C-alpha cells in the first residue's frame, strides 16, 4: 500500500519536472533561410531569416519575419529570442533555404549539420537553394498562408508527382557522405508573388557548382532514378506538329559489364501517353516518328548533361556508388574521381507510347 502511494505521489510530482511548451506561447519556425550578410557585415558571419506563422482568431495567418546576423546559427536563435515575445522552437521546421551566394562560396554543410544535430528537426525537412534575395523571398506575402508550408508544399508535390527528383535533409546528407554520390537540391526563385522552381542546383561536396534548368529536369530525372510522374514532355516534329507526351513511368538501367574498359551504358526507358497532338492524324507511322524524335532529343540532352557532369567531376547520378557495388575489394574514391571524367558513358533512350488518348 505504501509502495503504491509512493509511486502515485512521484508520478504526480514528475509532471512538473521538465519545461513545458504550450502551443500558444511559442514561436514555431516553419522556414529558415541563410544568406551572406549585406556588404557592411563582418566576415565569417551569416544572416539568418526565420519565418514563424501566427494564427489569428479570425482565421488570418500572419507571418512574423525575424532577421539576425551571427557566427553560429544557434547563436542566431538566441538573438531571435531577444526580439520575440515568445521563445523559438524548431520542431515544426519544414524548409531550410540557402542563398546561392552562400552555397557557391562558403558551402552549406556546417549549416546543414546544425539541422541534423537537432533531434527535434525531422529528416524530411526540405533543403533548397534560392537564387533570389533571401530576405525579399521570405518577406513576401504569398496570400493567407504560412510561408514555410507554402514553399514546402510547392517543393513537395513537385517531387512527388512532378519533375523534381526527391530531395530532403536525409537525402542530402546521404549523398554528401556517400562515396559515389554528389548531392543536388532544388533551386527556387521569387517570381512576383510566387515561388518558382527554377531547376536544381548541383553540388560538389557542399558547394554549388552548377545548375540544371527546369525544362531539362525531365531528362535529369530519367537519368537519375526510376519514377512515374504527371508531368509532360513536348516533342516538336516540325514547326506545326507538336505532341505532348504524358509520362507514365520511367526506368533506368545501368550496364556496368564493361566497367573494366571504362565503359558505362545508361539505358533509359520511358512509357508514355499522348495527351495533346497538334497535327492532323495520328497514324502508327506518326507515333513511331514521335517516339524516335523524343528518344533523339532526350539522348542528346542527356549526353550533354553527362558530359557536363564529367567535366565538373560531379556525380549526381550516383554512378560511382553503382560502380562500387560491383567492385570487389576496396573501392577507392580518389581513383574513381580520376577515372570518372574520362569514362565513356553512353546514354540510350527507349520511348514507348502506349496510348494516344480516348480519340483515335
Amino acid at each position: 500500500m505504501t509502495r503504491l502511494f509512493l509511486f502515485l505521489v512521484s508520478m504526480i510530482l514528475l509532471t512538473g519536472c521538465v519545461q513545458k511548451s504550450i502551443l500558444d506561447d511559442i514561436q514555431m519556425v516553419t522556414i529558415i533561410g541563410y544568406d551572406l550578410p549585406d556588404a557592411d557585415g563582418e566576415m565569417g558571419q551569416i544572416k539568418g531569416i526565420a519565418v514563424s506563422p501566427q494564427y489569428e482568431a479570425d482565421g488570418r495567418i500572419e507571418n512574423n519575419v525575424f532577421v539576425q546576423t551571427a557566427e553560429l546559427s544557434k547563436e542566431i536563435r538566441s538573438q531571435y529570442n531577444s526580439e520575440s515575445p515568445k521563445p523559438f522552437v524548431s520542431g515544426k521546421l519544414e524548409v531550410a533555404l540557402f542563398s546561392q551566394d552562400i552555397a557557391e562560396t562558403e558551402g552549406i554543410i556546417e549549416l546543414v549539420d546544425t539541422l541534423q544535430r537537432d533531434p527535434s528537426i525531422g529528416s524530411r525537412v526540405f533543403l533548397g537553394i534560392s537564387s533570389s534575395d533571401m530576405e525579399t523571398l521570405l518577406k513576401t506575402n504569398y496570400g493567407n498562408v504560412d510561408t514555410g508550408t507554402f514553399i514546402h508544399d510547392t517543393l513537395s508535390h513537385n517531387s512527388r508527382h512532378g519533375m523534381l527528383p526527391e530531395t530532403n535533409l536525409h537525402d542530402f546528407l546521404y549523398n554528401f557522405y556517400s562515396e559515389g554520390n554528389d548531392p543536388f537540391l532544388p533551386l527556387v526563385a521569387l517570381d512576383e508573388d510566387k515561388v518558382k522552381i527554377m531547376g536544381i542546383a548541383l553540388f560538389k561536396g557542399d558547394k554549388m557548382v552548377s545548375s540544371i534548368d527546369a525544362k531539362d529536369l525531365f531528362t535529369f530525372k530519367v537519368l537519375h532514378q526510376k519514377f512515374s510522374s504527371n508531368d509532360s514532355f513536348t516533342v516538336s516534329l516540325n514547326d506545326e506538329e507538336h505532341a505532348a507526351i504524358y509520362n507514365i513511368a520511367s526506368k533506368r538501367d545501368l550496364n556496368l559489364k564493361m566497367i573494366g574498359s571504362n565503359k558505362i551504358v545508361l539505358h533509359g526507358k520511358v512509357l508514355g501517353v499522348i495527351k495533346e497532338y497538334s497535327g492532323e492524324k495520328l497514324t502508327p507511322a506518326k507515333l513511331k516518328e514521335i517516339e524516335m524524335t523524343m528518344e533523339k532529343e532526350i539522348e542528346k540532352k542527356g549526353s550533354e548533361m553527362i558530359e557536363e557532369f564529367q567535366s565538373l567531376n560531379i556525380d549526381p547520378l550516383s554512378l560511382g556508388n553503382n560502380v562500387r557495388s560491383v567492385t570487389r575489394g576496396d573501392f577507392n574514391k580518389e581513383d574513381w574521381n580520376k577515372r570518372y571524367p574520362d569514362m565513356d558513358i553512353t546514354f540510350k533512350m527507349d520511348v514507348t507510347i502506349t496510348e494516344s488518348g480516348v480519340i483515335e
Partner: protein
Amino acid sequence: MAGPEVKDQYKVSPFLVFYLVHSVQVGVGVMGFQRISAEHAGNDAWISVLAAGLSLNVIIFLIYKIMMKEKGDLISLHQNLFGKWLGGFLSLIAIAYFIAMGITVLRTYIEVVQVWMFPDLNKWIFGTVFLLLVYYCLSGGFRVVAGISFFGVVLPFYLVLTMIFPLFYGHFRDLLPFFNHSIKEMYEGVKGASLSYLGFTTLFMYLPFIKEPEKSHRWAQGGHLLTVFIYTLVMITTLAFFSPEQLQKTIWATLTTWKIAEMPFVQRFEYIGIASWALVILPNLCITIWAGGRGIRRLSRISQRNVTIPILVFVLISSSLFARRESIDLLNEYTSKVGFFFVYVYVPFLFVVQYIKGKVDGAG
C-alpha cells in the same frame, strides 16, 4: 554446495524463458549497435550480426549443458568447481557484472531521453521513479519479473513495424557486393554486434525457477533467434538507409531512422518510440537487478528483499555519476567487453572444467 531449492509455487512455465531471454537482450544496445558493427565490417555488417547471433545459439546450448548437469545456479556451480573462496570470488564478479549491466541500461536510457526529448530532465528524479517501479516489480518475486518481461516483449513489439519507414528511402544497392571484407574485419564486426546480444547469461541465475528446466531449452533458443532476426532486419535497413560515413556519424542510428517517419497524428515519432522504449528497458533492469540480488542472497543468506533496496540505491547513485557522453560510452564499452569475455571465453571454460571434473570424480 547443493543447488538452491525453489518451491514449486515460485516457479514459472518453461515457455516464459522465451520472453526472459529476448527481453533482456533487446535493450539500449539496439538503439545504436549498427555503427559499432559497421565500423569494420562496412556493408557486410548484417552478415556479422547474423553470424554473431548464430554463434550465440551454441553458447546458449553450452549454458544448458552445464546447468542440466549442475542442477543449480551459477553460485553453486562456482562453489562446486572452484571451492568456497575462489568460487565465491568468481560469483561476486558475476554479480557485479549483472548489476553493472543494470546501471548501463538505466544511464543510457536516461541519456537518450535527455538528448532526444527533454534536455532538462533531472536524472535523479527520473531514475528514482523508474527504480521505484523496478522495486515494485522485484518485490513480487521472480514470477512478476517473468511477467514483466512478457509484457516488455509483447507491448512494444509494434516498434518493429517502424522499420518500414526507412525502407522507402533504402538504397539496397549499398549492400552489394556481399562478402567484400576480410575475415578479420568480419570478426571485428561480429565482436561489435555480439555486444548487443548480451544479457542472456542471466539464465545462469533463474534456471532453478523454471519448471522442468530442460524443456525451456528450445524456448531460450527461440527467444534468442527472434532477437537475431530483429537485429539482422534492423541492420539491413540501416545499411540501406545511411551511407557508410553518415552512419559512422550517427550515434543512435535506430532513433535517427525514426526521424524520417511521418504520420498524420504526430510530427516526431521519436517521442512515442522512446517513451515506448521504457517498457523495453523495464524488464532489462528487473532481470539484471534480480539476478544480482539473487546472487547476493545465495552467497550470504541475507534475504533478497532486504538486499534489493541497497542495490537499487547503488544503481541510482552510480548511474547518476556518469554525466558526460564519453563516460557513458566508456561504461557501455567496459560492460560490453566483460560480457563478451563472459559468453565467448568463460562459458566454454566452465563447460570444459565441469567436463574434466566430472571425469576425474567419476574415475576417483
